């Protein structure tokens, strides 16, 4: 099990470093802004009834409390819903202790009408609950309830305050943490906060004063509890419970919030001064402010409620120094403005803000300015530094401020946190001069072509060079105070037609920036690509107001042919838009139909084919063809007729074959007709032959 425990602890530690990292990302400047309007709009958004966050009394109370602290006009529907819930809970005897407690808490803000009878019932119930309480939450709800009833009705007392105090105190552990019930061995800071709030309630309810020694021992416990406080790098302090069982693990925000509530409640009822270093209170305030605007209703409530507790606590009230702007422009002569507020953004007591020193970031040199006071401006409520000191040029600096309270008594009430370091960027216009571009001959260094550049305007230089020459680009940068300026970004970019890019850092010697590109040494890097190269110059810095990215023009490079094994230029990204999109349509080209003569021509030749038939017929007529030989007897005449009918039928069959019949049908019919034709033809021909034989013999 110990390994598991270690692992869990390591894990949660990782978690916190991440949280820290995250916080530092969100609030890169290491100072904290007090509560602002963004919290108000977030609260309205998170605690809206349609957001579903006003279902239970606890959530309703959280919404009301957050609105109350932030000074947001209560919406009538929220108030109405709350009052309905409150009267339902208070009136019913079956409602749970927790609900009664939150109903009373909500009631302390919305002030619903609750009749005396209901109050009496509640008091009896709560008193009974106090007597029967066995766990810390039971004490918390019942005592807390009684405190709230006292707040609105007055005459509520605890008879056996000493006894209750002792029985609550039984949950205390030696390390300052508390257990939530006697059966639960785990102690937590979260429970400590609840216990403190409960005990504060007991103290305020005690009718004869409590034994002071009891309270003083508690004071000691609080100091012990604060020994276990944890710390972020930026000075934020928080409490956290590292529980093996993550089931009722509350998270740092809820835990810290609980402790702050308990602490401030207890500080409010005791006459003694709690000996907590006031820096720790400031650290706690920084923790809550460092969260920014939480996106969760519960987190927002915890943040706002804790800050409200800190705003008016009796230990020490933190004052927060913030700057509306940490980027100052020398050219626009921006004012250095400093705001000092309480955590919730209300005005601080009379005080003076001193600028103790200004240091260049990252250097250990002495302060650049003398200590001086900032001037308070009544109109804006801010402390201004009229003119930036002459010794401050553009650059990034750390300004160190100190808050001095005017009245000595206030130093006991407020905590300012000593010297405050704020990183500040001072920006300005950088003067660019003597910008030139030149092509040099390699061996002699003599200038072949040289062009002046106007880096503030348009340039379209057109140069040409071969691999034996050099390209020189030079310019000079000076700050408004006439000093040399070194920008973070001074890059020269050459881009070939094929989009292959080459980037060079422009180096400097004093004010003068110069880069010489010796193409002989660069041919390999340029992949032997000849052709047009576009030249781009980028000069930029965080404090340079006129950072520039400028297309200077182009240079036509004539490089040698690549050798066989030269490296190929890397592939360039393809434009995603051209990769997709519809393709060109394709239509099939059909085979052209065979060439045919015009129909008229065919018809004309069709007519011509009938001419021989016509000639034949005419010829027959001219020859005087007759049918005198046609058999006169009935039988041969019938056969002759049949012969010609069957010849006609065969010919018609051919026509039919042409028109519609297929070969098999035709052959079938032809076979049938052929037999008839042969038989009939034989009879007719033999008859004709015998007739002619008779004629010859006769």
């Amino acid at each position, binding site marked *: 099990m110990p390994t598991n425990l270690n692992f869990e602890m390591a*894990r949660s530690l990782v*978690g*916190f*470093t991440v*949280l820290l990292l*995250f916080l530092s*990302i*969100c609030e890169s*400047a290491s100072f904290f802004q007090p509560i602002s309007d963004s919290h108000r*709009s*977030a609260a309205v958004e998170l605690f809206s009834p349609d957001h579903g966050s006003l279902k239970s009394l606890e959530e309703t109370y959280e919404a009301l409390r957050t609105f109350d602290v932030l000074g947001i006009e209560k919406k009538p529907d929220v108030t109405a819903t709350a009052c309905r819930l409150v009267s339902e809970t208070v009136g019913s005897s079956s409602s749970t202790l927790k609900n009664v407690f939150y109903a009373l808490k909500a009631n302390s803000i919305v002030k619903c009408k609750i009749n005396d009878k209901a109050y009496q019932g509640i008091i009896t119930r709560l008193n009974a609950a106090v007597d029967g309480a066995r766990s810390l939450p039971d004490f918390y709800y019942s005592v807390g309830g009684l405190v709230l009833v006292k707040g609105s009705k007055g005459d509520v007392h605890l008879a056996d305050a000493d006894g209750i105090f002792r029985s609550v105190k039984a949950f205390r552990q030696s390390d300052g943490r508390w257990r939530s019930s006697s059966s639960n061995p785990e102690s937590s800071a979260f429970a400590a906060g609840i216990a403190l709030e409960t005990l504060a309630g007991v103290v305020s309810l005690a009718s004869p004063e409590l034994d002071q020694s009891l309270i003083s021992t508690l004071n000691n416990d609080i100091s012990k509890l604060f020994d276990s406080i944890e710390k972020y790098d930026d000075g934020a302090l928080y409490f956290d419970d590292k529980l093996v069982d993550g089931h009722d693990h509350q*998270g740092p925000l809820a835990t810290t919030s609980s402790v702050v509530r308990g602490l401030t409640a207890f500080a409010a009822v005791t006459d003694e001064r709690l000996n907590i270093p006031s820096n720790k209170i400031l650290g706690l305030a920084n923790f809550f402010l460092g*969260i920014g*605007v939480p*996106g*969760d209703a519960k*987190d927002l409530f915890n943040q706002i409620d804790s800050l409200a507790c800190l705003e008016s606590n009796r230990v020490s009230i933190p004052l927060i120094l913030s*700057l*509306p*702007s*940490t*980027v100052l422009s020398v050219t626009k002569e921006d004012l250095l403005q400093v705001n000092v507020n309480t955590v919730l953004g209300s005005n601080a007591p009379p005080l003076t803000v001193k600028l103790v020193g200004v240091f260049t970031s990252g250097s250990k040199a002495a302060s650049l300015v003398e200590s001086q006071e900032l001037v308070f401006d009544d109109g804006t409520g801010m402390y201004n530094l009229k003119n930036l000191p002459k010794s401050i040029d553009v650059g*990034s600096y750390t300004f160190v401020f100190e808050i001095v309270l005017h009245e000595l008594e206030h130093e006991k009430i407020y905590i300012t946190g000593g010297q405050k370091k704020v990183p*500040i*960027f001072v920006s300005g216009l950088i003067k660019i001069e003597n910008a030139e571009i030149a092509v040099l001959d390699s061996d002699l260094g003599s200038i072949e072509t040289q062009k002046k550049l106007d880096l503030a305007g348009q340039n379209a230089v057109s140069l040409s060079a071969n691999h034996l020459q050099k390209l020189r680009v030079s310019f000079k940068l000076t700050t408004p105070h006439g000093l040399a300026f*070194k920008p*973070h*970004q001074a*890059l020269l970019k050459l881009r070939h037609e094929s989009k292959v*890019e080459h*980037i*060079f*850092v422009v180096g400097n010697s004093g004010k003068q920036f110069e880069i010489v590109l010796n193409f002989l040494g660069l041919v390999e890097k340029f992949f032997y690509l000849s052709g047009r190269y576009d030249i781009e110059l980028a000069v*930029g810095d*965080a404090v340079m107001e006129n950072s520039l*990215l400028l297309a200077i023009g182009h240079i036509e490079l004539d490089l040698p042919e690549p050798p066989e094994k030269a490296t190929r230029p*890397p592939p*360039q*990204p393809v434009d*995603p838009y051209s*990769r*997709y*999109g519809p393709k060109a*349509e*394709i239509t*099939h080209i059909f085979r052209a139909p065979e060439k*045919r003569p015009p129909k008229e021509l*065919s018809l004309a030749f*069709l007519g011509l084919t009938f001419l021989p*038939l016509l000639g034949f017929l005419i010829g027959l007529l001219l020859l005087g*063809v*007759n*049918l005198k*030989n*046609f058999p006169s007897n009935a039988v041969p005449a019938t056969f*002759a007729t049949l012969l*010609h009918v069957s010849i006609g039928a065969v*010919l018609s069959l*051919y*026509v039919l074959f042409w028109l519609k019949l297929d070969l098999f049908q035709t052959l079938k019919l032809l076979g049938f007709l052929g037999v008839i034709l042969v038989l009939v033809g034989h009879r007719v021909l033999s008859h004709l032959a015998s007739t002619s034989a008779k004629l010859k013999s006769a």
Partner: protein
Amino acid sequence: MGKLWLICIASISILLPFLCNAFSPETPTDRRVLVLLDDFAIMSSHSLYFNALKSRGFDLEFKLADDPKIALQRYGQYLYDALILFCPSVERFGGSIDVAAIVNFVDSGHDLIVAADVNASDLIREVGTECGVDFDEDPSAMVIDHIGYAVSGTEGDHTLIASDDFIKSDVILGGKKIEAPILFRGIGHAVSPANSLVLKVLSASPSAYSANPKSKLSTPPPLTGSAISLVSIVQARNNARLLITGSLSMFSNRFFRSGVQKARSQTKHEKSGNEQFLTEISKWIFHERGHLKAVNVKHHRVGETDEPALYRINDELEYAVEIYEWSGTSWEPYVANDVQLQFYMMSPYVLKTLSSDKKGLYSTSFKVPDVYGVFQFKVEHQKLGYTSLSLSKQIPVRPYRHNEYERFIPAAYPYYGAAFSMMAGFFIFSFAHLYSK
């Protein structure tokens, strides 16, 4: 009654594994998302983004990235449909998750959102590399832009960038134009030019570069200008969708709510474009846009309704397909004018743009080429941001049968006429020859 319960529970336990699959046209509404965080504080600080997802019906499950109990699959079934990695600094995932498990998760069609940040761990960089993007190797490098930065009273180092160089695609970024620039603070990455699946959705401006803002620049920065991608997406071949960005804070409530003014611009926007941009792109990632399905592929001869087993050359045919796009709740007709059909055998013989009736039905008609063989109807629809549609259906094409050619050709009339006049002459001649005296 007890029996009924038992049956109920049994059937649920049988069905359960099937409820959590990748996005599929059959069960597009089952969407469970695992969100891995470095710290639960992110739940609160990034709640607007998470709430936007929850309000669209996603079931988000938040876990610490090093929670030893996390797992993507159990008994071979994936427990989630998508994974969100909001844990830039995690060195080793808890439970059974590692880079290979995440790659398998994506390979089986699930979606992934990865947000890295400055000082991102090697593990997250490795996930990025697997997705096809390379984050700047310098662990403290950030994207810096001295011209395109966001004006802010408290941010002086120009690492808070206001970028508005979006990809031009309505399907990825929604139909509504994003007016306000996007706030970005984090690391840049480059997409490999050889990888055609990765798209830069948000690019840095030409003046940007990736370097450590706190140290002097002595060597040229590895990433400069528009080659820096701030947000990239991937659509894998199995339609899994991925989002990779180098900024976790761009999802934060603070950036969502923050106003934005780009340097050297007078327009001050009340609210940054982050919320709109990231919400719209998450709709794309989770297939609420741009996921197509094709149904009812039909083809037949003109004038007929039944699908033939084969076509003859020179047939007139009609082809129709219905294409729908998933809108998050229902399948809506897909309206486009560039869906193309190919009639394909080794190479396309016909390539035609289908005409749409704006209700999802795409149709066309064309004449079968006079080449016979085994053809395919192919619809290969690839469009920026949409899932690719690839339909193919094989269909043979036969030549004419012998009796399907033209029967009475006018050019042959003289031949017919000669034959028939010959026959008529023969008939008359038979009389003249036999009976003439």
